[in-house]
């Protein structure tokens, strides 16, 4: 399992990459593996507000549906619409397949670094 060192992670298995003032958000390798084959993603719209610790969308695998929790509070400035047609990219390339980009960030959850997140996954594993 892959835990890129340059990313931060939430306890609910999202990853965040800061690109200047913009937070790029996706789901982790551990999350996609636990979900199994992802078949559908419910995406928010550009301009929607997101709140740290609250769901902004959901991802469906064959087995089940899971909320995607925003690690930050802010406004969505970009949505990866490609995922609507190819949700399986979340399985094949979880760190390439970003879901949303958030700007005007006013708050964030306590995020973990790669080592701490890997330890958390090992525990849940």
């Amino acid at each position, binding site marked *: 399992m892959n835990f890129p060192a340059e990313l931060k992670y939430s306890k609910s298995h999202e990853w965040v990459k800061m690109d200047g003032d913009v937070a790029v958000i996706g789901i982790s390798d551990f999350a996609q593996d636990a979900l*199994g*084959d992802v*078949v*559908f993603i*419910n995406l928010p719209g550009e301009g929607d507000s997101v709140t740290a610790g609250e769901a902004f969308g*959901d991802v*469906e695998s*064959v*087995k*089940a*549906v899971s909320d995607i929790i925003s690690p930050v509070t802010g406004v969505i400035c970009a949505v990866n619409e490609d995922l*609507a047609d190819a949700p399986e990219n979340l*399985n094949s390339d979880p760190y390439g397949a970003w879901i949303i980009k958030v700007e005007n960030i006013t708050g964030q959850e306590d995020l973990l670094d790669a080592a701490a997140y890997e330890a958390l996954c090992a525990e849940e594993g």
Partner: protein
Amino acid sequence: MSDLKRTQLYDVHVAAGAEMVDFGGWEMPIQYPTGIIAEHLYTRHACSLFDVSHMGRLLVDGPERVAFLQHVLTSNVMALEVNQAQYSIIPNENGGAIDDAYLYRFEEDRFLLVVNAANTEKDLAHLMTEVKNYDCTITDITADWAAIAVQGPKSKEILTILSGGEQITEPVKNALNTLQLEGRTVRAAKTGYTGEPLGYEVYIKSEDAAWLWNRLIELGAKPAGLGARDTLRLEAGMPLYGHEMGVDPDGKEMPIFAVSLARFAVSFSEQKGDYIGRQALERQSAAFKRIMNRDFSDLDVLPKRIMPITLLDRGVMRAGMPVYRNGEQIGWVTSGTMVPYYRSEGEGLATKILDDTAKRAIGTAYIASDVLTDDIVEVDIRGKRLKAVIPPYHMRVDAPPFARPILYKPDEEAAAADTGNRAAKAVELLRKATENHEWRQKQCINLIPSENSASRAVQLLCASDPAFRYAEHRKIKSFYDQDVFYYQGTKFIDEVEQLLVEQMKEYLGCSEVETRVISGQMSNMAVFSALMDWKNRLDRKHTPQRLGYVMNNHIIKGGHLSAQPMGALHDYIAIDPVTERSAVVNFPVCKDNIYKIDVEETKKLIDRYRPELIIFGKSMVLHKEPVAAIRRFVDEQNIPTTIMYDMAHVLGLVGDHFQKPFEEGAEIVTGSTHKTFFGPQRGIVGVNYKKEDLKYGLWETIESRAFPGSVSNHHLGTQLGLLMAAYEMNTFKDEYQRNIIENAKHFAKCLKAQGLDVAGDPSIDYTETHQVIVSVGYGCGPEVAERLEENNVIVNYQATPEEEGFTASGALRMGVSEMTRFGFEKEDFAKLAELMADCVLRNKDISGDVEKLRAEHTEMRYCFNDEEMRDAMGGLLGQIGL
């Protein structure tokens, strides 16, 4: 998960990297590293293995086992023969399901009941209480035998490698067999929970389970977990206890008849007695019938039903989500997910399954019983109402070896009729008919065994004046059985018909002939109708009884369609009260030659069932039928029956070189006059009853079931043509029939020598008829036949007795009669065999060589062709104005 139970294959799953979960108290693989979608797709296009050892396996033994099972199950256990299985439900008194189950009869005197893993304890407690009143025992053998489901289009091929070529089971759903796989005994069932038309569940001793699993994987199968099992069964529309059976989200019990499929598992036969839940189920059945007739006035007993549902908006439905119609909640989704499928292109038999895949959000719903197919509903998916539709089904399995996804498509509006220039179309039609005539008569090698070409004289007579006349006639007792015609101008037709009757009596060797039936199928219908009428002749005040047991050749063993309940027998055969199916008994076939009737086993069945009618005859026919042996047997045993021989395919072979049906003891012969008999397309009935016989009355009934029973206008043009064909046949039959059989044997030998897989017994040169059967590989028949057609060789793709149906055909059925008639001799068939091997085995273009070979043989033989004949034909041709 330490308190969970593990199957015999637990270690194998863990070693394969499976994700293990708690399922009904068992630690089971939900998926392997490949994932649910890949496992689902691999099942649909190749072969997957499922460990189903967690399901409860209960052995029911003892003298009162049948009475007990009749009491605790909904199905009719008496209908289950040895080596058959049936779907059943364990009902409660309210007509709800305690569980659904499969009942297997591998042995004469024991039954195996397989139940859901999560329900095994509950089922066992219920059954143990009920069994106290019966002299029988229930033994839980779940731990002694493992169960592996082997499912998918390649399952048969893979298992057959392990069986060393032995057939796994008969190629019909629910067939069972006990056999050896590389020396280990297994019990195989043609059952499954994936909807695959090819799929088996294999029971094996616990200690051999891992061995079998690993061998199957070595041979190309892949493991699949419970996740794929669920998406596969959902796509196939099969219910899952706890979702489509049991209690609904409101906590109310779902009636068994809420699942449409359940009606096949519920019997109200007298044999069932007063079983648990019977009265409630009878009320449900009545409610179900009303609903099916769209009478929604009383929905109390069956307020909701299980229906398939397809999401039209983007999203995924899940179990428990509410379903709305016009803003009002009408039920819930009971199962739902996103299911993958292979895309396909092309139409009909040419449909090609692509490697490209897609997904669709489908499910089942428990919704108001007045919802109809194609109705639009809404599903509440986490607060959003999304549009969905009720499709007729999600998948079909009637084109084996593949299960085919059916994507929801609303009906398209029919294109407007083309009303353009009809005069131009008329010319175009003639031009195309000319082209077709030339192709089939001069360029093609026609090997369809049920076809032939008629002589020019026959063709000409078919087109002459009587083709447009009427000549109804009937024997009148007051006139000493003289025929009375209803129309004037029919003297010539009367004369022709009398001459034809005499020619056909001579040909068949019998006392009476009916020539007015216009097809082989109609011949059979007239005979079946007459048999039924004659059976009821002494009681006209009650609804007539249908025919009781009828013995025939099973369609997959080469039997005629027109002698099956799905064909001409349909309206004349009774339902067997024990099996609740058509009262047909099939001829058993020899183990070492599936194309031949096993006479000794047949005698046992005749003794047991006492069939009212025995129908010999096949459409895939390599051998003589054992008419004489069976006649001797029924006479010796004094068994009252009627022996009929449907000679459709072999009518042109009646005589010294094949069979003389009446000399052998047939009472009735039917047939079509355009297969080996080279006349126009008509039917014929011959009987050998004499005026003083009791059954002469049956003959008179056959005449009246021909007219007015079956035809008013009996197609007088082809009747005239048939008289000419009968003259030709009676003149040339010795040479024609001998050449046909010699050519067929030679053709078979040459095809074999060329490396093709010829069916039949090599010791008799494969065939005793005009037919030759070549195996070209499971499911490859349609493709190879198409390739041959592109090369001007016309054959018939055909399922062999071991295959599932015509779309899975692996054989070509060929006949030599038409080309023999065009003068093909042994060396021509040898050349043809060489060309066909080039095309079939080496994919070579043989079209030019075929045309060349055909061009050498365009003059018809076995017909009159002297100068006087040509002059006479010219006269008629001139009168017709050509």
